[in-house]
């Protein structure tokens, strides 16, 4: 397949404009770490490969902002800013596989730090995007506080490559914590929810509160701050049966969390959102269902946010699809497939959200000829027929 491989925003705009007639259907790719997200994209006439669109455009450590080309892997950005004691407060599992910043924005991905810092939606302060006709458009800027104009970055958050190409991203940075300690508390989903709630309301300001299932059920509490401050807070957190982890142990635990989100060949990985207090019951139901179907599940839940990532392994493909259908029944539009190897059908999405008309209208205005990412949203976007 033809690949457009621009290395500048201008080249990108030109390539997209020039191929309108010859290559009407385009598939935007970064490092390919989210190939399994959503429904399968339909065959395209060309790919828009963003991996040549890399590098830091402007880094201002004192302002704690960095502008990068969207094909830059997050891991590289982290390396650059770490030298100045800073970080992008985002830890999605795919970062370890060199996921690009643009790809992470388009997938709305995040990791355990979502508990304290949200997702890229909350960290992006400016973007440049290229639309289906090659138009290059900026929104936001280089300052953290800015309400001038509409925030187009939000639209692209979760767009899965169906609106346009994210070409440049300006990020807000945070100080890298001087000290980090993880405490592990053995806990059922229900108990984990109670402990997490208690910790949130006690004002201990945990950076992450991740409940994990498989093999053991446990709550991971990550505290970040100054060395003395963290030591003090660890004492507050440590209850009966809690273990303060060594750096190696902590690293192992957090790698396991990441592994849940990535999955293995043959697995299905699903992320869904629910009211935080509804988490334990929802997770209990999934585990019971998986047991019945002979499936294995590994779970990682950002408890205060109510965001759950479920890796399904083993068993029959039909059973994977049943489990997904059950999730759709309960959590409707708020279920995203992150890996679909295990699925029996290609359908990935549940019933569309109530705002689907707005989503379709946005798609129609931004990409009227459906050049980008046809199929990713399945029946949600009627992009095979073209939109009216």
């Amino acid at each position, binding site marked *: 397949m033809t690949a457009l491989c621009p290395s500048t925003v201008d080249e990108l705009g030109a390539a997209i404009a020039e191929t309108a007639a010859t290559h009407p259907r385009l598939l935007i790719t970064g490092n390919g770490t989210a190939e399994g997200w959503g429904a399968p994209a339909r065959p395209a006439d060309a790919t828009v490969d963003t991996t040549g669109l890399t590098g830091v455009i402007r880094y*201002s450590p*004192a*302002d*704690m902002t960095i502008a990068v080309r969207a094909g830059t892997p997050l891991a590289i950005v982290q390396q650059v800013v770490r030298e100045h*004691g800073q970080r992008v407060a985002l830890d999605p599992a795919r970062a370890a596989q060199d996921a690009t910043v643009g790809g992470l924005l388009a997938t*709305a991905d995040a990791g355990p730090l*979502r508990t304290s810092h*949200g997702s890229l*939606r*909350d960290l992006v302060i400016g973007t440049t995007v290229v639309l289906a006709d090659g*138009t290059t*458009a*900026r*929104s936001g*800027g280089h*300052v953290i*506080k*800015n*309400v*001038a*104009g*509409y925030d*187009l970055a*939000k*639209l692209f*958050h*979760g*767009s899965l490559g169906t609106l346009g190409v994210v070409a440049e991203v300006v990020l807000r940075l945070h100080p890298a*914590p*001087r000290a980090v300690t993880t405490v592990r508390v053995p806990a059922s989903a229900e108990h984990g929810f109670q402990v997490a709630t208690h910790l*949130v309301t*006690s*004002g201990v*300001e945990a950076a992450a509160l991740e409940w994990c299932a498989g093999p053991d059920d446990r709550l991971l509490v990550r505290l970040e*701050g*100054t060395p*003395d*401050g963290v030591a*003090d*807070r660890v004492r507050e957190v440590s209850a009966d049966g809690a273990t303060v982890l060594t750096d190696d142990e902590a690293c192992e635990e957090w790698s396991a969390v990441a592994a849940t989100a990535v999955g293995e060949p043959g697995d299905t990985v699903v992320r869904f*959102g629910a*009211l*935080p207090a*509804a988490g334990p019951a929802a997770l209990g139901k999934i585990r019971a269902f998986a047991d019945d179907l002979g499936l294995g599940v590994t779970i990682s839940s950002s408890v205060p*946010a*109510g*965001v759950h990532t479920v890796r399904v392994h083993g068993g029959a493909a039909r059973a994977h699809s049943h489990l997904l259908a059950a999730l759709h029944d309960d959590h409707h539009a*708020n279920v*995203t497939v992150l890996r679909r190897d295990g699925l029996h059908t290609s359908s990935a999405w*549940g019933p569309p*959200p*109530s*705002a689907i008309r*707005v*989503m379709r*209208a946005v798609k*129609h*205005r*931004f990409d009227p000829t459906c050049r980008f990412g046809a199929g990713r949203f399945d029946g*949600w976007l009627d992009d095979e027929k073209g939109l009216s």
Partner: protein
Amino acid sequence: MTGDVRAEFVAALGADAVLADPVELRAYECDGLTGFRVVPALVLLPRTAAAVADAVRICARERIPFVARGAGTGLSGGALPVANGVVISLQRLRSIIEVDPVNRRAVVEPGVTNLDISRAAAPHGLYFAPDPSSQQVCTIGGNIAENSGGAHCLKYGFTVHHVLSADVVLPDGTTAVLGADSPHLGGYDLLGAFIGSEGTLGIATRITVKLLPKPAAVRTLVADFPSVEQAGDAVTSIIAAGIVPAAAEMMDAVAIEAVQAALDAGYSRDTAAALIVELDGPQAEVDIQFAEVRQLCQNHGTTNIRVAGDEHERALVWKGRKAAFAAVGRISPDYIVQDGVVPRTLLATALTRIGELAAAAGLRVSNVFHAGDGNLHPLVLYSEAAGELERAEELSRAIAELCVDLGGSLSGEHGIGTDKACSMPRQFSEDDLATMALLRAAYDTDGICNPGKVLPTPRLCGEKPGVHRPHPLEAAGLIERT
């Protein structure tokens, strides 16, 4: 507007929900940017979300432009009516539907004031983080539209970071829920795009906000500096040390003088700059970092540090800071509040250039600002009676555009509205603006939802921009300005 349409509004909403009396309509002719005034054809006061949808459906069918209105404290003319259009006031949708302490959220109607949300949450040890100085009066609907900030947004972010979902009436009169029970949802972040859209994409009728637990510890200090530049450097060094203050606010000598004259908030009169730094969080972290902040202020030449010893003293520090605009208003017959942003490291440059611009214009400018995020609020002092209005407007516009030239933004929190729509081409290219217009058209095909705001239009940009006069609520001493 025909009598038939008016009758239809009356039939749908009830006679007491439709204002047509010219005297009553006058109360809605402007928002906090009082230099722009337009009397609408009708004001509608629906009581329910369904009635809002009914009203918008009639507008859509008849192509009648409508403007949503909360408390009318906006400072950019966002709620300015459209002639021959209707104003849909959300003032009667004021119930707090639910406070859910377990999930730490509240479900409210759009006319609920910002402060009432925190009041309702307080018994559970929770609060709503965005804290604009107008919080006693401004509504959550207005906060969403403007993506309002507050003194504490350096650490806690803006309204967009604290809203989970909103029921909205779209400009065609249909309804949709944007957002969900958790931040994870399938599809585009339509809620994120709606927040900060200045009432141009629809009307929020029911909003679910996040509530935060009150921080375990709070410590506040005021450090005096011999120059605003040194104070700015101190802020930069605090942030470079990896500290994220809850707030870092600055006042220059003119503002301090005015505040001390208006109310004695304990600020030193003989200093060039006062820097307020507030830290909050777990006690241990706050204590350690507070000591570091003191040291850093000392390294940058502070001449005096006043630490708020208790909650009363802390409240006084903030009272002084929040009264700064009104206080400056007292030492000048008229003034314009500007709201621009520069990269924080260029604060000193920006302030020097503003000083030069002011000197060239022969006018005084006082600077009160959110130092942590480079959000400047220069107050341009002038006397309309002395014929200085035009010069003041020009100076104010020059300051906003200077912010853009320094790599910043036309607005940090007050919005573009009517006021700055014509300056938008300074910050954004034609393609940028045309792309923003695509988003607007996706929500509002017919262009009836708060037309003329945010994006420049030839009609508007031919007209003369307006000027600040004290908001009626401010004049009455009900609210203060930051």
